[in-house]
């Protein structure tokens, strides 16, 4: 598949290839999204030599039904709170008049790169029984393990993603409507609740869906700070690693994915076609030129938003500082003398894992978005029977929890004809398809804003469809490509849940090393890996951004400024 995609970009072939891709796109969606998906259902229903519902009865039985309730108890509040926090941050950054508010943008990006496991350990070191803040500073003796801590950590972790989604909608929002309402005498509060909020709904709903899915998929946080509190994702993981029970893990995963699908449909139903990922990379006409009346909030509101923002910032910075301290001192939490011994420890095997992470991230970040925008082009521009269904398939990975996806790929691609397990390809494929919805949705948004007359003009002027595609559409979709690329890069660098079942001795990744180090009690090593991962991810992002900005600076095309509203996903 990779080869096919590269040919496209080499301008070598013509219409036939175009048709070939037209066939290959739906086919690949069937093979790499629908098929693994069905395999999980199959594995949970077909045990030994017959069909059975026994596993489902087991899940709904006395011992396990508590899991469903627990998962509900955590995921609902955490996704609501994360969305609220994200909304507050978005209002703060986009709408308030506080100087230096852009810093929160940066903090949110940072928050997203926070590596798995180690962040929870930092949390324990800061707020635990012997925590720096709870004990040394406040003199408290707290027991922080329980579902409340899971909700809190997930809220803080997923808020940044909710923020990015909501902020991108807010930035593109047409201010005219609000201004009109204000001119007609509505109070600020009234404008906010009757105009702004309804206009923001697509973004808010998307953020809600996203944080809900992430919360369901999160297996690390419950294990680390849950204090024995069990949830679906961690249970599915433990069924595989502890009890070698793949069928039961599959059944549990089905329960993970059902609520996600339900929310997905609900959201589509509520919002209709308005927006899902709300990721249109094209700036709204209204954003720049209009006169802003009544900009800024009531001082009380501003104050409240600022307090929330500062709290979020301090928390994120504290977690990062704690990780850095853990990586660079002798004994994390006990002996704060400077030491590089953890980096020495991870130098050998560790550098390889880090290299693997970079390798996967680069491949997925470069190839994935290409697939996404081409898929968007085909489904938008040459609709065929069932293209709605294929659109659904292309968006599906968005709501599928990572561990489910990982298990599905193991089940689907171990045996011939597609015996891919143990290769690097399967990891790249998994990540590419997992990232597909982002660039697909972004590409779709662009295409829907391009009037058909553009294509018509190109065809009338004698260009064939191939030339039109290459010369008209691809350049238009470049911003969509960029969003997908950045998102994919961050996500692949920090993910663990989806690929933990696929990695082999040869293809270990940095996040796995963190997991492994903390497992063995090498907390300092885990912190060292985490710090390395953070630095490399930031460096990679700067690099990708620079490359992107080079032509811009040269061309001095002053108008084009892609929104910063990328929606990098969270690990898991």
């Amino acid at each position, binding site marked *: 598949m990779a080869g096919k995609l*590269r040919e496209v*970009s080499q301008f070598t072939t013509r219409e036939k290839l175009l048709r070939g891709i037209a066939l290959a796109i739906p086919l690949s969606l069937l093979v790499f999204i629908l098929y693994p998906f069905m395999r999980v259902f199959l594995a949970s229903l077909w045990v030994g030599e017959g069909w059975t519902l026994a596993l489902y009865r087991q899940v709904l039985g006395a011992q396990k039904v508590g899991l469903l309730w627990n998962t509900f108890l955590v995921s609902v509040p955490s996704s609501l709170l994360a969305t609220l926090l994200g909304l507050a941050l978005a209002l703060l950054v986009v709408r308030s008049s506080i100087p230096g508010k852009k810093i929160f943008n940066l903090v949110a990006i940072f928050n997203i790169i926070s590596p798995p496991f180690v962040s929870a350990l930092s949390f*324990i070191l800061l707020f*635990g029984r*012997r925590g720096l803040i709870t004990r040394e500073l406040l003199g408290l003796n707290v*027991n922080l*393990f329980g579902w409340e801590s899971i909700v809190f950590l997930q809220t803080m972790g997923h808020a940044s993603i909710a923020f990015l989604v909501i902020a991108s909608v807010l930035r593109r929002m047409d201010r005219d409507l609000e201004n009109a309402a204000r001119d007609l005498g509505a109070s600020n509060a009234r404008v906010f609740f009757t105009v702004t909020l309804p206009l923001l709904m697509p973004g808010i709903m998307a953020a809600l869906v996203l944080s809900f899915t992430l919360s369901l998929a999160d297996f690390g946080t419950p*294990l680390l700070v849950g*204090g*024995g509190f*069990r949830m679906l994702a*961690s249970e599915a993981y*433990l069924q595989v*690693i*502890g*009890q*070698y*029970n*793949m069928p039961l893990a599959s059944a549990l995963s089905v329960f993970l994915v059902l609520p996600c699908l339900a929310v997905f449909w609900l959201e589509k139903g509520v919002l209709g076609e308005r927006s899902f990922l709300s990721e249109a990379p094209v700036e709204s006409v209204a954003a720049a030129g209009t006169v802003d009346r009544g900009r800024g909030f009531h001082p009380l509101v501003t104050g409240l938003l600022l307090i929330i923002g500062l709290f979020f910032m301090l928390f994120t910075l504290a977690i990062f500082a704690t990780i850095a301290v853990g990586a660079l001192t*002798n*004994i994390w*939490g*006990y002996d704060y003398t400077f030491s590089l011994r953890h980096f020495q420890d991870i130098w*050998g*095997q560790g550098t*390889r894992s880090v*290299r*693997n992470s970079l*390798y996967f991230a*680069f491949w997925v970040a*470069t190839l994935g978005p290409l697939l996404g925008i081409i898929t968007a082009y085909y489904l938008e521009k040459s609709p065929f029977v069932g293209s709605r269904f294929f659109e659904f398939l292309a968006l599906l990975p968005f709501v599928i929890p990572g561990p489910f996806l990982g298990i599905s790929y*193991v089940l689907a691609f*171990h045996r011939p004809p597609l*015996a891919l397990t*143990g290769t*690097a390809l399967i990891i790249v494929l998994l990540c590419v398809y997992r990232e597909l919805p982002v660039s697909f949705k972004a590409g779709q948004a662009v295409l829907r804003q*391009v009037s058909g007359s*553009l294509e018509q003009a190109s065809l009338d002027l004698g260009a064939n469809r191939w030339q039109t595609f290459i*010369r008209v559409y*691809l350049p*238009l979709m*470049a911003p969509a*490509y960029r969003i997908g690329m950045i998102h994919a890069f961050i996500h692949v660098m920090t993910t663990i849940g989806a690929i933990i079942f696929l*990695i*082999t*001795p*040869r*293809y*270990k990744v940095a996040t796995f090393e963190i997991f492994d180090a*903390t*497992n*063995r*009690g090498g*907390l300092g090593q885990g912190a060292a890996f985490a710090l390395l991962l953070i630095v490399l991810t930031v460096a990679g992002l700067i690099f990708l951004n620079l*490359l992107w900005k*080079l*032509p811009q600076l040269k*061309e001095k*095309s002053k108008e*084009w400024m892609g929104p910063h509203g990328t929606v990098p996903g969270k690990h898991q």
Partner: protein
Amino acid sequence: MRFSKDAKKKQWFILLLILGLLAATAFSGCAPGPEPEGNGAEAPVDEAEEVDEADEAPAAYTGDPLQIYAAYGGLQEIMDAFTADTGIPVEFISMSSGEVLSRMRAERGRPLGDVWFGGGVDSFMVAAEEGLLEGYISPEAEHIETRFKDPDGYWTGVSIVLVTFVVNKDLAEELGIPIPQTWEDLLDPDLQGEILMPNPGISGTAFTAMASIIQRLGEEDGWEYLALLDENIPYYAERGSEPPNKASLGEVMVGISPDGVNAQREGYPVEVVYPTDGTAWWHSPVAIIAGTPNLEAAQRFVDWTLTEKGQEILAYNSPRPATRPGTPIPGDVPALETLNLVEYDFEKAAAERDAIVERWQENFAK
């Protein structure tokens, strides 16, 4: 579209350039592949181009690098030593016994691993029964005590894992509780909420500890003891690593774990206690995965772990007593003779496993 199309086109072209560049770097610089000959792990990233050559065909060693699933401490040092001695490059990954078993089952007929190194002996027994392991009686195995190896050579014990109390000394002092030396001491009401232990349904350590208690005290007293111990346990951890980690960080005073010495070596203020009224133990084996395409190298690995030198390197890097008598052990590892090991019947425990876990789930799962 307010920007010029030309600019966009140019951008797209540059993007392609970047893409090509990235692809090139990714291929040459970051391509994961077999380690180069010798000790490739030491190769810094800058030498990646040379590493790339080894991608297709490792020069001197004809086979592929040995693929090892491992549950062992100090892996990097151990594998480096093995490669230095034999010239066989190794790639390894840490995995719990349960996951290795899951993988071997899923990979039956097309195994992706060659050797399984370390873990719970009960999982090895299950794997041998299911035909997932290759029988091999190493010439070095004659030095290993009979009770530490499988008569058919499906697995051979390389070290003894001991279930210990990892006690946070600072916290003990603060709470004014003497450091517990026996299982009986753990019932002290002052220790309420201070003891962490994994869920026996998930952790082999916890299961072995519980089954040992039941075998030692007898059915009735054993369960009664577990009920009393349960009073002091706030919750059962989902992972074996949680109790020692939380004891290290001072979240609880006592963590029940086989890996206390690691926390001690990391520098945390913990004491490792080998309970004097009965230390639970098992042997951690090495085995060859059935159907491995790399049998000869796998056998050499098994041989090496059982040699005098291999045993010493193992004991030093993963602080545990060795199975080969007379192996020198590091100072922070106790000699087996000084410990009160439980007389443990592995077969009985394996036969009763499901019943014990089920009864435990009914009574104590929180």
